[in-house]
């Protein structure tokens, strides 16, 4: 993998991406990366790609993208400088060099890290330490109020409870059925359902009367003894005796 120049192994799989390949090629120039000839590096990369293509190796797309970019960089570096073009080819070359320096620095740092005296390989802790134990003991907290409040809670929960249902004024369904049948017998015109309720009542009893009367009307309609109509949902409900 470190073989320089022409003897570089053409194993595309061995590279961790185009930057990795570029770094290996740059190292083959055997100069400080700061003195790197980017033009020469570009030539090296493009030549490498040529050979890979000649050998009909499959080349991943990102290597080809890099090749295209480097070909562009090369022509820009060789052509007369056009001050209108931003960024300048020199800037692009410098950025590439900075990236290579950074990758190289981290690669060397990684190697130095791995070469350190490593735990379990070069230096050892005791294989069978006695170990340190921390035995946790709970000091339970509760005060007298918690205690009696808890008993109050339990007692309240389990004490026999008497449910008292208030005696509410209601109109039963039977009553409603009787009333509506009776009144309907006298009604030929469409009349609102409210006209069938007992007069002078309000509040809870009126609601109950309305609900029961409505159910009574539905029952009478089912039996064919009443007709009802409504223009829209929640609109007034009208009923009459069938013609």
């Amino acid at each position, binding site marked *: 993998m470190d073989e320089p120049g022409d003897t570089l192994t053409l194993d595309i799989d061995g590279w961790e991406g185009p930057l990795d390949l570029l770094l290996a090629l740059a190292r083959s120039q055997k100069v400080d990366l700061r003195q790197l000839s980017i033009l020469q590096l570009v030539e090296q990369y493009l030549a490498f790609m040529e050979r890979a293509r000649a050998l009909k190796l499959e080349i991943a797309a990102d290597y080809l993208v890099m090749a295209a970019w480097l070909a562009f960089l090369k022509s820009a570096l060789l052509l007369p400088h056009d001050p209108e073009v931003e960024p300048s080819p020199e800037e692009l070359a410098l950025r590439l060099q900075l990236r290579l320096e950074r990758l190289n620095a981290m690669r060397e740092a990684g190697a130095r890290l791995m070469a350190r005296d490593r735990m379990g390989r070069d230096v050892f802790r005791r294989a069978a330490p006695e170990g*340190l134990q*921390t035995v946790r003991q709970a000091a339970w907290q509760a005060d007298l109020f918690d205690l009696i409040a808890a008993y109050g809670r339990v007692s309240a*929960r389990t004490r026999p409870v008497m449910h008292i249902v208030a005696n509410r004024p209601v109109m039963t369904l039977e009553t409603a059925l009787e009333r509506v049948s009776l009144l309907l017998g006298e009604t030929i015109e469409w009349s609102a359902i409210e006209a069938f309720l007992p007069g002078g009542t309000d509040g809870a009893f009126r609601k109950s009367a309305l609900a029961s009367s409505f159910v009574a009307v539905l029952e009478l309609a089912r039996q064919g003894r009443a007709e009802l109509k409504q223009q829209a949902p929640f609109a007034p409900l009208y009923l009459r005796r069938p013609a």
Partner: protein
Amino acid sequence: MIDAYTRAVEAVLFAADGPLSIDAIRAHAGEGDVRAALVELTAHYAGRGIELVRRGERWHFQTAADLAHLLRRDREEQRKLSRAAIETLAIIAYHEPATRAEIEAIRGVQISAGTLDVLMAAGWVRPAGRREAPGRPLTFATTPDFLAHFGLASRRDLPGIDDLRAAGLLDPVDVAFEHSEVANRDENA
């Protein structure tokens, strides 16, 4: 200064996962006077926190025996009793001796396995003999520590049902809440 071979023996013994025979030490540390190194190390560590000890024909380092108590440390953690635990404790205190089934009947909920354990670990509840009834169930009662912790001279000092009612402690929670709401409104008015 420690000599190179003694140093090697020291490292080998330290890293070992059990007592080592002279031969085993030599296998790692290389040729040398293992016995002389062991004598030197024993003397060096005498009186320190670590000692070199011989077990039969094998040697190992261990923590000085008189410091073993340092390796185990007890730590107290303040913890609040769970609602289930405090209710169970209250029922036992009011009804003792009480069986598990009686506690469950009063609470209206089953007691999980750990609840009585916690109360016994805290030293507030103790087993109080078996009831002479079918199945001879175990009964539970409170301890003198329980009285001491809750500042009671005796169980008779526990407020009775009438006291609890007067204190509003028998009201269902939501009613009590409404009362306090009303009280607040009055204060703010």
